[in-house]
Each structure stands twice: as C-alpha cells, then as structure tokens.
C-alpha cells in the first residue's frame, strides 16, 4: 500500500533521515514513535509527497509519488499536520468543507452529496454543534478535531496523522483512536500515525515503528517493540514497561521518577 524505499533526507546540511525503509499494508494502523526531533514529522511529510527526499522513493498503491496528480492523491490520502494553521475568520463549516476540494468541479461548487459528507464528518468527531462558530472562537482540542473532520471529509483510503491526539482530553483521545481503529477494520483505511503517547500507540496499533535520530530502531507488533529493551534506552530509562492483564499482546508503560537514586 505505502512502500517507503531507502529514503534519506536532509534539511540543507542537517541530515534527518537515513536509509529508511517501511512497508505499510492496506487496512493497517502503523504508529510512528520516538523522541522529539527523531524525524517522525519529516517522514510523514515525505510519505505524503510534501517534501522530496534526496534519496530513495515512495510508492503509494504501487505508483511512484511523482506519478500521482495532486488532486488524485488528495482523493486517496488525507493529512492531519502536527500544528495545522486554520484561518481564524473561517467558520467550522467552511473549514471542514475544504476537505471536499479534491472532488469539486473547476468552479469549486459543493453539491448536496458534499454537504452530506461534511455533516457526517462533523458528527464523527462530535463537533456538529460548532458548525457556525469561527475558528478563533473554539478551543485547541476542538480545532484539532476540525482538522480531523476535514481529513475524513476527503473520504481517504489512507490517513496520515501527526499527533492528532495532542491537545485532546483522555476521553476524546480514546474515542478518536477507537474511531480510526474502526475505519481501519471496517473500511480497510490505512493509517500512518505519529503518536507520543506510548500507551495509546500500543493499544490501538497493529504495528509500532520506533524512530531515533532518523533511523528505524524497531519495527514490529506492540508486543515485540514494547517488549524490546531498546525502547528503554531510546527513552533514556524514563519509562517502565509491563504487561496489562486484560491484553497480553499490548504492553503498557508508566513513567518512572528519574534522578532519585
């Protein structure tokens, strides 16, 4: 589905990714984890074709990224950036309607079907009551959900999400990821997601990829990755991993007090 092949990338002289290869299958939820500055957002941007790698290439649905027109690609894959800017004067409705862009004719007129899909997307992320509010008049978590609704309105077959749970409360973190989990299961949507919360990553992913300094350190099921000692060293012994009694294959993580000894 998404095939990242020996990708290396640098911002000017600062080299950020080294020979990264990944294979993401249809309907799979793959979480990218790793410390700040590891190159997670960069990898996501490259996989979306928003940055071009100096080496290596990416195929989506067996087609090289440069063979896709931006419009076709936008119908196929949607993107939720890490800190998305939304114009403050736009209403929530207008903001989410932008997700229909790749389907509109050259005049950009929304049809009844487009409006139905937007309404559905607003219901999915539970912000239908904000419809007429302006972006400047909603909270950070609500804004995060507006961007997600916009991505869902694109009716994508793959979703690229960069820390979508960032400013959400626990309840909304869980409902959002559960919803994405259902999309993957029922509609075979492929999900490539950057998550900082290791428990969420472990609970909702089919696969975890641990990135450190632009290198893939581990790639496997939550059990395989979280059970590996390397996780502890990448996170500098700041966590302890243990097995949850209810789900053996999805280990959990707790923080430890450092500097105590």
């Amino acid at each position, binding site marked *: 589905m998404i095939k990242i092949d020996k990708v290396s990338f640098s911002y000017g002289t600062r080299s950020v990714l080294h020979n990264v290869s990944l294979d993401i299958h249809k309907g799979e939820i793959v979480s990218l984890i790793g410390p700040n500055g590891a190159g997670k957002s960069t990898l996501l*941007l490259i996989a*979306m*074709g*928003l940055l071009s790698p100096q080496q290596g290439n990416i195929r989506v649905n067996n087609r090289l990224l440069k063979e896709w027109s*931006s*419009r*076709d*690609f*936008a*119908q196929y*894959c*949607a*993107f939720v*950036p890490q800190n*998305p*800017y*939304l*114009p*403050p*004067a*736009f*209403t929530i409705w*207008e903001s989410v309607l*932008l*997700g229909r*862009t*790749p389907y*509109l004719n*050259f*005049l*950009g007129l929304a049809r009844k079907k487009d409006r139905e899909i937007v309404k559905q997307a607003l219901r999915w992320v539970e912000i239908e009551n904000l419809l*007429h509010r*302006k972006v*400047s008049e909603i909270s950070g978590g609500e804004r995060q959900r507006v961007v997600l609704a916009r991505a869902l309105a*694109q009716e994508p077959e793959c979703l690229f999400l960069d820390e979508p749970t960032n400013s959400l409360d626990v309840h909304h973190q869980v409902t959002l990821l559960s919803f994405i989990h259902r999309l993957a299961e029922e509609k075979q949507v492929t999900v490539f997601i950057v998550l900082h919360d290791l428990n969420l990553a472990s609970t909702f992913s089919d696969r975890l990829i641990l990135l450190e300094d632009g290198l893939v350190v581990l790639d496997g099921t939550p059990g395989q990755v979280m059970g590996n000692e390397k996780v502890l060293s990448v996170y500098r012994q700041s966590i302890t991993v243990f097995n949850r009694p209810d789900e053996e294959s999805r280990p959990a993580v707790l923080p430890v007090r450092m500097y105590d000894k």
Partner: protein
Amino acid sequence: MRSSGGVPVKIISLIIALFILLCSIVLSSGMGAVHIPPLKVISLLWQKITGWNIHIDYPESWNVILFNIRLPRVLLGTLVGMTLAIAGVVFQALFRNPLADPYLIGVSSGASFGATIAIYLVWKFSWGGFNAISIAAFFGALLTMFTIYGLSRIGKRTPVTILILAGVALGSLLTAGTTFLMFTASDAYQTIHTLGWLFGSLSSARWSEVTGILPYLGIGFLFLGIFSHRLNILQLDEHQAQALGINVEQTKLILIFVTTLATAAAVSVSGIIGFVGLIVPHIVRLIWGSDHRFLLPMSGLVGAAGLILADSLARTIFAPRELPIGIVTALIGAPFFLYLLRKQKRDIM
C-alpha cells in the same frame, strides 16, 4: 454570532450591491456643470441601447455630454474601481497579509516610473487608443512585477515574505527614480503632469480607453472567478493546501500574473488611486466573512460604486476645478476604515 450569512443572504446582498452600483452610474452620469436628472439619464440610456425613440424633451447637447464625456468616465471609474478592489482581495489572500494591495508588489511604483519616463521624454506615440504614458505605465508595471517575482524565486518556490520585501525594496528604488526625474525636470508642466498622474485621475477618460482595457480585465476576471475557491484553500499553509490537491506554486503564479495584468491595465489609464484595493476588501470581509467566492464579486461591486462616488466628489466639490481622485479616496476611505476597525475588533482575515 454567525460570521457569514447563508447562501441566500449572500446572493441578495450581491443583487442589492449591483443595484446600488447601477444607481451610482446613473446619478454620477447626471452630475456636473450641466445637470441631467436621473430619470432622463435612464431614458436616454434606454433609447440608446434599445434604439426605441422615447419622446422626451432634452437639449441636443445632453447627448454629447452624456455619451461622449460622462459615460466613458463613469464606466472607466467602474472598471478601475472593480479591478483595484478585486486585485486587493487576491493579493491579500495570496500573501496572507492584510496590508497587501495591488501596489505592494511594485505595480504602482513600476507604473509611475514608466509613466514618468514617458512624460519626460515626451513620447508621443499611441497604440490601440492608448497614449504613450498609458503604454509606458502598463509595461512599467508588468516589468517590475516580473523582476520582483524573479528575484524572490528560490528553487521552485516563491516565499511570500521574500516577495513582499523585494516588492517594497524595488518599489522604493523606482519611487526614488520617479522623484529624481520630477526634481530634475526643466519644464514645470512635466512635474505637474507627473504629480497629477501619481494621485490618479479619470479626467482623460475616452471610450477607446474603456474598450482598450476591457480585454485584460475580462481575462483577469474570468480566471479569478474560476480560481476563487482556490483562494480559500490558499489561506491554509502550503502543506495543507497541497494535501488538499491544490498545485500551490502553479496556482500562485497564475493568480499573480492575471491580477497584475488587470491592475496594470487599470492603472495605465487612471494613474495611482490608492486605498481602494486596501480598504474595500477589508470592509467586505468585516461584514460578510472571508469566503472568496463571495468576496471577489462583492468587493468588485463595492469598489466600483466607491470609485464612482469618489470621482463624482472629485469633480464637483471645487467645480470647475477638479481634485485628484486619489486624494478623495484617501480622505473618505481612511477615516471610514479606522472607524470600522475600532468598531468591529475582530479577526480581519
């Protein structure tokens, strides 16, 4: 509070604005040393357009005054006002900068430098109904815009901040050139002529100018109409716009090109008329929100009506003398804008 009305509200607003514009055209055509009552203006227009002979009494001179002098001027004002306001919307949207207006990327300074050179070298040629000053202004504007665009291109991208900075820098250089020519002029008439041009005027309006700029504006408006929904998307950052299927660089290039072409055409026949492109889009945005599919036509109508009003004042306040129209737009526009800004206190883009 709903920031932007629904579709019916917007369509009704557009129809009302169109009606107001038509009223302004009729009223303004009747104003001047020889007053023609509005109803007579309408009758004469009706007669001219349909060819029916309506039996009303009017002096023969009205025909000449209305159709040869006033109407070309009012229609030129309509087109110029429309173009400046619409160009303001486009540049503000494109640069995501509330200060951007058609002049920021050097259109104005390029045009004035071109015009000044034509005035000083006493170029006399003309082409397709345009005099040498208009033609020099047109190419001055285009040339400046392309220079600035070329200077700000880094690889395949054109960062907006660099574009604006380059525009401001090259603009100052050209303005210095214009001022230098004015100071070194041997002929006081040339200086006055240039000054008049720098403050804008519609007093030279002729039918040939109206029809001459029409193709450029027509092409511009057509493209902008088609691209207006993409302006909405360009309000997001470039990654998001790209991820929604927009070819950002290509879209920016097309928008800058057609808008500059239309603005250069308008400026070449009217001189520099400030404030319209800056203020009209803000007023429309403050009242109706920032959907560009509505913002473009509405700003066009408001800009046209506003410029007709300003021109009527410019030629009647101190009649028989005329004020430069740029002074009138600044005198009315700036205080009204400040008032709105204080009153609304909300996000302006």
